[in-house]
């Protein structure tokens, strides 16, 4: 089954190697890994998706916790959560072929973030299937995709959830629960010249 782990790790050199090395050692392929700053100074937040047996979840979580630089690990498993991915897609398009793509972008509630005489860049945020959908439709249309860059998944539990571990650390006072609505509203600005 697919496991999604959300972890808070120290923002230091070599930390990602330690996390990645754990999965390497268990011979588990990391399907997706995103890392970035978190709401806490000095802590990065990562979302890691991997395929492993159902029983492996606890052991992976326990092993992640054993890493000195890992402060918190949440196994999202089947819990209600919002998962998003960001994709940048560069498509070959001229003055004559743009409008069809604009329509697609509109339907998928994506947006155009770069436009040149020969190409345009689409930014799209959403669940994996939606991004796959846009890519598929682009492929099936006459447009030629030049580049795709995908962020990998980011996951956050729904509701007013703060990790007990982080609470115990005295952190976690950011209690304005982010609601699903505020995350999913996607406003597609048409063109954002940069």
């Amino acid at each position, binding site marked *: 089954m697919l496991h999604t782990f959300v972890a808070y790790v120290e923002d230091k050199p070599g930390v990602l190697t330690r996390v990645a090395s754990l999965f390497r050692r268990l011979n588990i392929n990391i399907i997706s890994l995103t890392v970035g700053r978190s709401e806490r100074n000095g802590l990065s937040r990562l979302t890691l998706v991997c395929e492993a047996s159902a029983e492996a979840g606890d052991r992976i979580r326990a092993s992640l916790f*054993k890493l000195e630089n890992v402060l918190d690990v949440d196994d999202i498993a089947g819990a209600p959560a919002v998962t998003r991915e960001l994709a940048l897609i560069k498509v070959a398009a001229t003055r004559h072929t743009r409008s069809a793509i604009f329509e697609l972008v509109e339907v998928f509630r994506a947006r155009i973030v770069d436009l040149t005489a020969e190409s345009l860049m689409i930014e799209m945020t959403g669940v994996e299937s939606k991004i796959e959908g846009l890519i598929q439709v682009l492929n099936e249309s006459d447009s030629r995709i030049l580049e795709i860059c995908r962020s990998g998944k980011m996951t956050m539990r729904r509701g007013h959830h703060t990790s007990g571990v982080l609470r115990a650390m005295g952190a976690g006072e950011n209690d304005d629960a982010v609601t699903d609505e505020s995350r999913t509203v996607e406003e597609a600005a048409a063109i954002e010249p940069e």
Partner: protein
Amino acid sequence: MSIPSKTISTANPKSSNAHHNPPTRLTGAEIIWATLVGEGVTEVFGYPGGAILPAYDALRKFPIHHVLVRHEQGAAHMADGYARASGKVGVAIATSGPGATNLVTGIATAMLDSIPMVCITGNVSSKILGTDAFQEVDITGITLPVTKHNFLINRAEDIAAAIRYAFQIATSGRPGPVLVDITKDAQQGSAIFDFAAAKPKAYRPHPMLRVEEPGLAEAAELIRNAKRPVILAGHGVIQSGAMEPLRSLAERAEIPVALTLLGLGCFPASHPLNLGMMGMHGEAWVNHAIQEADLLIACGMRFDDRVTGTTSTYATKAKKIHIEVDPAEINKNIKVDVALVGDLTEVLEQLLPRISSRGQGGREGSGWLKTIETSKGACAVRDIKNLPDSGHLYAAHVMHDLWRITGGNAIVVTDVGQHQMWEAQYFHHEQPRSLITSGGLGTMGFALPAAIGAKVACPEKEVWVIAGDGGFQMTSPELSTIAQENLKINIAIINNGYLGMVRQWQEFFYEKNYESTPLVSPDFVKLADAHGIAGRAVRTRAEVEGAVQEARSAPGAYLLNFMVAQEDSVYPMIPAGSALHEMIRRPGKNPLVESPDEV
């Protein structure tokens, strides 16, 4: 040189008064030693070289005894043996590059057996780090999977905190080795040394530790209702110091105790409830008892493949309680019914009040014990030690006599192979930390250096090395270290002219194709002599007692070269991939006859 005189206090080498020193500017090199002194370190094992030279230059100012090894692997094994014998953190020092890589086998050995150890390596200057400079190697990268944690330090001001943190990591939770790699410029630089301020953050226990009321109640209920319970006691009992509560549990509930190799000594061998060692070379009745049990209480052991045989057929009739400090071990090899995840001593102390005494023979318990006793049958008296002296020398004779003559009071440090199993079978350990052996990694060459570490840690103890002729040659240069340190260590080489355990596998599973296992060795007595160490060869059983006494009473180190039967095998044996009860038993025709009628 602006060293505060207190730090230099060589008058009392045991003093560790760095805590009381006011913050002072020291070089990074001095900070290394001052921090070690502050952590209570009095002995280290190491080997100098370019990138660690600043540290060595500062060593004489500090009350630390440095044991010069002959190979860095030896330094790691010595620190390991030191830790196993004393329970304190062992410290190994090496230079960059090959010095650091030579430590790796020793670090991995400590990792697999959860030994608290701190290794300090020098590295090239931070300015040339990552340029493939002379003797540069990415040792934090190399040791990442075989350390509990490691640090790369390139500033003098970070050294004290890193070393203090390393000590905390090494000793907390499930112990393990930690490596601190310090660049040469960090050693040469200077910083304010404030031991107290360098204290690590409060230890944060693993968030998945869980000992709660329902689990304790369920465990107590299982123990109450069990008809055929067995306690499986491992290294964790010794690490946690849980010998007393374990014994209370066994006695109160009348539960027999089977031991892992690293658990030997955690429960007295002479105790009526002691079954003996389980697993691949455990006695048949021990493994049968486990296979027949209706409840296994695993205490500080991890269901290693060497104790379970095939996991699918392992103790299928038994409910399982797992008491373990490392949450990652739960359900790793064997699925358990109740997991009590915490320090073993604490868990047992919470569990004990819930266990009522069985002293009045309430349990059919006594029936279970009788069943086990019956299954010992002929095996219990078949032993080689009961046989008339045929003049031939078997390893079992040596082990039995060593145990008899030392009264079991020695620290025995074994290498890896047949002799290691014979020792486990015939030398009966009453006390924890009386057997030091590489169980998890199975590192040949471990015994001699680890024994040096044990002797340095416990100078008043009688220390015996038991090694095969193969493993001994892997680290035999450390004989020089024994000579230089003038250590009274007794060495028993079980010499059968083969890499014996490999030969045994070839005999059983490769149609006696003895490929690359016959072994030519030097005359070990002459080798010892070349190091100024006395010794003699022993060829018959009649000579054993005299030789052992001679070694014990000799003023210095002594080497005994026991020329034993060449193609003797360790029985019983569970072939790899077989179930725990599918043992290869001692063949009747073997000179080591099994049944008393054949005696």
